């Protein structure tokens, strides 16, 4: 079974040890997905697998067979126009070195869908009811799997708020 990466089918690698992350970066030269730790501790390698955010470093490429992978290269529009969240990151300076940025963006896009579904988080006051309001605390808890060392956290949260406001409007 092939893997669909940004709407293109690619074969799984022969060596079963190859991670989805290395498949993207070393085999397909889709280097927008970043390797930060290669051990599930930073979130830089976040991609969308069938729409859910996952860590591509701890996913063997073979595990993605028959599934749809969307990477940062597949986030902008068909004509190359930036996604609303990408625009927000630039506008609110939600980045400095830019290395954690693709992971933050993929993660936040999936997070918006989780919020829309009403999935709770550890800081949701009423776990049964789900998040009543999208507070900054909710966003921060849900984005805590994406480390940033330059310290762009405030700008990232502002960019996400802007996206949520724009898509809600």
């Amino acid at each position, binding site marked *: 079974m092939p893997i669909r990466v940004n709407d293109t089918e690619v074969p799984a690698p022969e*060596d*079963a*040890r190859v*991670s989805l992350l290395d498949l993207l970066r070393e085999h397909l030269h889709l280097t927008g997905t970043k390797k930060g730790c*290669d*051990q*599930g501790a930073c*979130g830089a390698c*976040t991609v969308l*697998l069938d729409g*859910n*955010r*996952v*860590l591509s470093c*701890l*996913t*063997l490429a*073979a*595990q993605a*067979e028959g599934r749809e992978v969307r990477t940062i290269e597949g986030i902008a529009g068909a004509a190359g126009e930036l996604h609303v969240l990408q625009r927000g990151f630039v506008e609110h300076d939600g980045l400095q070195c830019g290395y954690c940025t693709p992971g933050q963006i993929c*993660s936040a896009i*999936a*997070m918006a869908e*989780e919020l829309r*579904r009403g*999935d*709770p*988080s*550890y800081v949701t006051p009423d*776990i*049964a009811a*789900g998040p009543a309001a999208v507070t900054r605390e909710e966003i*921060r*808890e*849900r984005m*805590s*799997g*994406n*480390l940033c060392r330059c310290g762009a956290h405030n700008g990232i949260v502002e960019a996400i708020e802007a996206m949520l406001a724009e898509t809600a409007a």
Partner: protein
Amino acid sequence: MTPLCYVRAGDRADALARVVNGARCLGGGTNLVDLLRQNVEQASELVDVSRLDGDVRESDGGELFIDAAVTNAALAAHPLVRRRYPVLARALLAGASAQIRNMATVGGNILQRTRCMYFYDVDGARCNKRQPGAGCDAREGFDRYHAILGASDQCVATHPSDMCVALAMLDAVVHLSGPGGDRSVPLTDLHVLPGATPQVETVLQPGELITGVELPPPSDAMVRSDYRKVRDRSSYAFAVVSVAGGLGLAEGRVREARIALGGVAAKPWRARRAEAALIGLAPTPEALLAAIREELADARPLSGNGFKIGLVERTVVAVLTTLAGARA
């Protein structure tokens, strides 16, 4: 990582057959792939069981059956879990990150291995769990995250799972399949203390596979429950200690108490002594403190984790005091 082959299990029987022949089960891979890459573990064949059935079903008797392949994220978001077993939803949501919860399976979570830094340092540290008889560098080393209960001279590691602490509190039963057929084991009996064989972490037999977890029908103390995780940063960190607590009250007195502790032992620690001590008492801070102290009477702190005793005491009191004050 040593060269290996990967196969996806077609069904449970296929998975079982491969496991019997020595394949390792791969769930979400969030722990195993890392362990393989760090050469902490070796495998020649991985059988991917993450696409086997992944349902959560309620029985007529009110039990909840959770397939092993259900992801941590799906289980935490499940309406029945959130309503009837909030401690479990909270524990799941306290674990790792959203990305990892989307990958990690219930079966894999149960079988995840310790995060002891000496266990992970294959080249540079001695570890009895990795290499029986080699020695333990965690003792007298960085043992802040290590056990205060149930440890041995051989090993002082802790089990890192949050989910399992809640499952222990909830009297969850783990369903296993193996060459000898199916059986079930209470979660509290699944993990074993290190003793002289720290390499043995569970009662799983060779060739056995976790197929699911069963929760009993919710009792008062399961519904009125909470999980509090104490950690070194506010999110995305393993527990220093954690507390799963639940209370069932009648006329202001404890009818049912459920307490389990994380970050204190090689297994999720069900605090049965403390629970028993509370029955029939008003859940005052003093009574709660006395009860948890009874549980911790056997605690043996290491050089760098003596603070955990007071921390567990205060956290247990706080969690149960809040539950006692909460509306049922």
